[in-house]
């Protein structure tokens, strides 16, 4: 069996699956249950100055009958006294010395505030700190969370203050509510962060009730924007992890978060550069036991691939992630329909006909049987037909060898530029 243990900036855990800072890590009772179920680590529900929460806090987006495609919340940081949280962290760490416990922190952007809280949590013994610069609602209105997480200077300065006091590794948790996450990631690194984690939740409104015209969720008839997470945000999170992982200025480990529901999602984040993952919504939907298949599935996958340690997976896809300008313009794929497998729903035809390049013909064979055929010379290889196709193996996207050698946009522009320069020179 492959070795699943990880070391993220010096924080060790028996497997890469941590619970993210959120309701699942609210108390010692919960985190201990989670560790019993197999979770390798937990980022404690964000600690800070006491807050008040509202009632009616969550909403979910269901998609075509599947529940919780996305999840939305207006909950704030912990509403329990710091002393109680610290006592429970201490007890939990004592019972589970080999599991990772990370304290998530959020205070006002003041040096003494950060120094004070860092000292208090490190005194009771945690494996690391995570600075919550991401919470997009409530706290942001008070200048904390994503309000400071959206300003690179504030991220850098606060990280620096924390590093002044911290003895354990410091992870900076970034908000996705920003145009370019590498800007704040770089700021965190400049501030001395030992690692970064992403993503926190994305500004969202889950819905509007068509009978009452209330927002979903609402508090006594009023709503406020919340934070979005769950399966729907995975592609956004994965891109942000990939962008940071391939950025040469961001040379610290990444803890990947956002829409991870199973071992496959986790493996994708690892391949895209995360050293470990954090999970919230999937645990909230199904309970802590989901980690059993995450561990079993990842372990079977590594065995099948002949990979000895999960750390060997980290970042393997990063070199394959680059810029549009580096993609080969002379690479060509086309759709090919396997008529033996096709069930003739004609969805590929209409999607191509109405919304792509009009190259799937509806034909009839000699026996009067309808069949679909791609005019390959007109196909641009967009994938749409194979995306809408409901049957595995009915449409293959196949590579068509091109006579021209590989040429990217950047190479093409450079060549043109050189040609122009040469001509001017002549």
């Amino acid at each position, binding site marked *: 069996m492959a070795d699943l243990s990880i070391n993220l900036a010096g924080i060790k855990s028996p497997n890469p699956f941590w619970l993210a800072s959120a309701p699942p890590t609210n108390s010692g009772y919960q985190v201990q249950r989670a560790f019993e179920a197999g979770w390798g680590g937990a980022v404690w529900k964000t600690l800070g100055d006491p807050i008040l929460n509202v009632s009616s806090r969550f909403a979910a987006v269901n998609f075509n009958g599947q529940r919780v495609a996305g999840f939305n919340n207006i909950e704030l940081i912990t509403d329990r006294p710091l002393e109680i949280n610290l006592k429970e962290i201490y007890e939990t760490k004592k019972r589970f010395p080999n599991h990772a416990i990370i304290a998530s922190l959020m205070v006002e952007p003041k040096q003494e505030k950060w120094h004070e809280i860092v000292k208090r949590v490190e005194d009771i013994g945690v494996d690391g700190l995570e600075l919550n610069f991401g919470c997009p609602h409530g706290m942001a209105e008070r200048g904390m969370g994503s309000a400071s997480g959206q300003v690179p200077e504030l991220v850098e300065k606060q990280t620096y203050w924390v590093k002044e006091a911290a003895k354990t590794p410091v992870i900076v948790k970034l908000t996705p509510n920003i145009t370019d996450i590498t800007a704040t990631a770089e700021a965190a690194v400049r501030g001395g962060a030992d690692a970064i984690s992403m993503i926190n939740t994305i500004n969202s409104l889950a819905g509007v009730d068509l009978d009452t015209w209330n927002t979903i969720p609402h508090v006594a008839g009023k709503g406020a924007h919340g934070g979005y997470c769950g399966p729907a945000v995975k592609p956004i999170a994965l891109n942000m992890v990939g962008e940071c992982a391939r950025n040469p200025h961001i040379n610290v480990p990444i803890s990947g978060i956002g829409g991870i529901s*199973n*071992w*496959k999602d986790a493996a994708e984040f690892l391949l895209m550069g995360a050293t470990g993952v954090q999970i919230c919504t999937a645990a909230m939907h*199904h*309970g802590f*036991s989901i980690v*059993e*298949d995450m561990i*079993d599935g990842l372990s079977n*996958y590594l065995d099948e691939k002949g990979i000895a340690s999960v750390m060997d997976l980290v970042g393997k896809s990063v070199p394959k992630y680059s810029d549009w300008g580096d993609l080969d313009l002379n690479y060509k794929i086309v759709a090919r329909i396997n008529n033996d497998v096709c069930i003739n729903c004609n969805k590929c035809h209409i999607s191509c006909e109405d919304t792509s390049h009009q190259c799937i013909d509806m034909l009839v064979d000699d026996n009067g049987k309808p069949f679909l055929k791609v005019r390959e010379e007109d196909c641009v290889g967009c994938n749409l037909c194979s995306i809408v196709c409901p049957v595995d193996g009915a449409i293959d996207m196949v590579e068509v060898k091109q006579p021209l050698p590989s040429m990217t946009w950047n190479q093409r522009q450079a060549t043109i530029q050189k040609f122009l320069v040469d001509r001017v020179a002549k």
Partner: protein
Amino acid sequence: MSNITGGQISANLAENFQEIFKGMTKTEAIVEANRCLYCYDAPCITACPTGIQIPKFIKKIASGNLKGSAKAILESNPIGASCARVCPTEELCEGACVLNNVSKPIAIGNLQRYATDWAMKQKEQLFEAGTQNGKKVAIIGSGPAGLSAARELSRLGYKVTIFEAEKEAGGLGRYGIVSFRLPKEVVEWEVQQIEQMGVEIKTNTRVGVDISAQQLIDQYDRVVLAIGMGKVPNLGIEGEQFNGVYDAIEFIKSTKTSPLTESVVGKKVAVIGAGNTAIDAATTALRLGASNVQILYRRTRNEMTAYQFEYDFAKQDGVEFRWLTAPTRIVGNANGEVVGLECIKMELGEAGLDGRQKPVPVDGSEFIIDLDIVIKAIGQSRYTELIEAFELNHTRGVVEVDKETLKTSQEKVYACGDVIFGYGQGDAMVVSAAEQGKEVAKAIHQSFKLISAS
């Protein structure tokens, strides 16, 4: 199970004995697996006699962890591939699914089949024997009960030898349940998985004939009796010696052991009895080309013991049912061949000891049906002789056991499966036999722990 529909009978006999349900496609399996709610403390787990962690194995199908899924199934049920095909799921796991009240239950049996089919294709050995603990156990019978006990004992470190009277291991799964529901390859794979763990199976070895009960007691630390039940008993009417009278299990067995013949083509057949064996025999006869097959039962549809899906399947295949009809005499010709069956009409009288109304003959209602073949399917006899050779307490061949430990009246001898079925003890099902095999293994292990602790 519910996916099996009958009625597609071909003139090419071999086709009729191909497994009917081909299994789910990947798309079907993924869609269905994602429909599972992943309930906490799920009722389906309790409803499965072997306690398979059903939501867990289904979640693993959804996540693409098929190896983990198959292991989760087979961990609880060493005969999980057979069970995926023959369990009356609507009365067990699927019957308990909470979605029965909301939409439709999850197709647990078919998903179980999807995962175990994957494992069968991989050919990988999924379980390892434990470190040898120096103790030897003899198991008599390699049906579901014996195989399950063997696997669990082997995992616990026991050296296990199975004695099997037949040429091939697998019990009724190998010989008794029709190929179109349970192909022999599935049972062969289950047997192989257990042999690969180092369990020795001595086939063609009938205990009581080739080796005595006493020898086993002397040579082994424990003995497990998993011999199932015997032949179908005689009807006790005139004419049973005629050519064309068959034992239902032998009749089915011939289709799983030798090449199919044309001997039943165009024949008129009656099957006596109304359990699952009767149904399997009747559909087998039709699939062998019989022109007409009737099931005769002395009670009514309400009392028949066959599962609903079996009954539906027989109707689809074209089996005719004659209720309240009991045979009184088999009619033969001068060549000693069956030509007809004399029957009498019955009516339901007072309730008997088992609570079922007793059928009583209607005077003067005798009639004769023209027939070529009579198949007896009125239950199975017991191996009383062997049971007595072990000097076990029993009630008419049903071995008495301690309900907790499945230990017989003999200190070293345990029993499981059909051999203890009857008089309120369990059900004659593959899945109960598998569970009892596990329980016996646990009890044997416990018995040694108790000894070493004292």
